[in-house]
């Protein structure tokens, strides 16, 4: 599902030359829940952005869902993201002027679905994350955990194969973090999604199938999660 070969990413930040990734090769099978872990500045988010088609590598090859992302234009990449990838971010990033349903429906505006179909699909996604009854609530009327669940509903509403989550529990308390991790795990188990998550949260290790450790832009050996082995 996800194949990165010898991927490097360098960029300029002010006067500093940053080497965020150094010849990283990563393979994630379809239907797996993978975690990218490592200290701050290790290149986790950069790697996530590249495999999700948000950023381009300085060198190397990125193949996701059978598409070589290197050959895609910016517009093609945008199209690729809208159909193949769902995003969950640390700070939820819901649009404050839209209610929960409106936020979930947003990616569907890029499709040819009718208004009724968009509405139905958004409500289905909200049901999956357990928030059907909160559909008409504005983001500021929802708790942090609920907002993150709305964000997950938005990520799955267009039925992408891959869900990428950047520190999805980073802004949540322990109880909500567990709920979100369980939900991501359910997406992998019940819907066959491939989930790639960047996290600092050690609890995450209990929910994922495989952990990829990064340090200073270099990918250390991957290992399977003990709990995942136990679960499967």
């Amino acid at each position, binding site marked *: 599902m996800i194949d990165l070969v010898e991927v490097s990413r360098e960029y300029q930040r002010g006067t500093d030359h940053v080497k965020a990734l150094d010849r990283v090769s990563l393979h994630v099978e379809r239907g797996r829940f993978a975690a990218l872990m490592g200290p701050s500045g290790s290149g986790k988010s950069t790697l996530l952005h590249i495999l999700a088609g948000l950023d381009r590598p300085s060198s190397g090859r990125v193949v996701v869902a059978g598409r070589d992302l290197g050959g895609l234009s910016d517009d093609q990449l945008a199209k690729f*993201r809208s159909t193949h990838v769902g995003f969950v971010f640390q700070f939820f990033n819901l649009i404050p002027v839209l209610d929960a349903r*409106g936020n979930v429906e947003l990616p569907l505006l890029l499709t040819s679905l009718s208004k009724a179909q968009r509405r139905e699909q958004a409500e289905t996604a909200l049901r999956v994350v357990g928030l059907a009854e909160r559909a008409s609530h504005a983001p500021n009327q929802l708790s942090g955990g609920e907002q993150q669940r709305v964000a997950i509903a938005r990520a799955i509403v267009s039925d992408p194969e891959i869900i990428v989550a950047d520190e999805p529990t980073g802004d949540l308390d322990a109880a909500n973090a567990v709920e979100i991790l369980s939900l991501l795990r359910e997406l992998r188990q019940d819907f066959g999604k491939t989930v790639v998550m960047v996290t600092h949260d050690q609890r995450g290790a209990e929910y994922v199938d495989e952990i990829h450790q990064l340090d200073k832009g270099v990918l250390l050996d991957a290992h399977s999660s003990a709990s995942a082995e136990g679960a499967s």
Partner: protein
Amino acid sequence: MKFLPFIWRNLLRNKLRALLTAGAIALAIALVCLLRTMPDGLNLMLEYFTSNTRISVHAEAGLVYPMPYAYLGKVRSVPGVEAASTWTWFGGVFRQEDGVSFPSFATEPETVGTVFEDWEVPKEDLEAFRRTRNGALVGEMTLEKYGWKRGDLVTLEGEVIPLALEFRIVGVIPNIPHFMLQREYIDQAFRSLDPQGLSWTGMIWARVDDAARVEPAMAEIDALFQNSEVETASETEKSYMKNFFGMLEGLVVVILVVTALVALCIVFIAANTASMSVRERFQELAILKAIGFNRRLLFGTLIAESTVLALLGGILGAALALGLTSVAREATEGLDNTLRPLASFVVTQAILVQGVFLALVVGMLSGVVPSLGATRRSVAETLREVF
């Protein structure tokens, strides 16, 4: 169309800011529409006060240069000229402290009714003017100013023709300030200073029988006096008034410059709003890009926001201008004739369309720079900065 609710919600994100910006645009567009009525309004005012069959004949060198009085007979003989009369500036002063406070001209009483038919002087007043040697037809505005009435004796001291003469008011000319005197009376009195009397005049007014014959008549009159001691320049009354009030032309230029500056101001106001609105949403815009909004789509929705806001302001402003001029028109309907020209300032359909179109352009222009800036930002770079 499916993005319209999304655009509308974003527009109302900060209701007070949207309201203030739309209000500023509305006022500016109303001002632009009102200013745009002025060139046409001034033109209509001139048409209201002038006749399209009356010609002014004066010395080519300028209005202050005299022409021989004998020219009157020649002008009367030109085909198409129904009647003609001279106007000789008397420069009458009633009260020294006021100076020349109304125009006073010596003229032939028998032709006033024909050449200036549109003045609507009552027949009996015209008859009294003909009969009374020292008679005067006085404009309603001057009568009201000095509290005069028919039958009063008024002494004027001439500044151009240096005579102090007594006149009896025998008639009233509605809506204008003029003080018209019998030429013969002035001529007789002037002979005490110059035995030749008034052998000159300042201007000849000629009434042509058909508006279509005005141009040929003017050409023929000027040809008559070509290479003579005083060559003439004939022009329509409207053109004469325009030249006399030459500042009107300058005023129109000033109006157009002010209109352009107002338009520029509203571009800045709207651009500032668009810029603030985009700047505070970089994070959201990055998320929209991440979920698949491409640059064109994002640019389109941002431009649409500023355009819809400006368009609403524009429609409101155009309606405001229309309302104001309609109220002014209705308010002047029952009033004195002198205020009726205010009704000439009409917000036409063309001006309304121009106003709304201007708002549309303002909206698009004001949104271009901030929208381009936002859409050009790399999504990964924004995410790195924000998260």
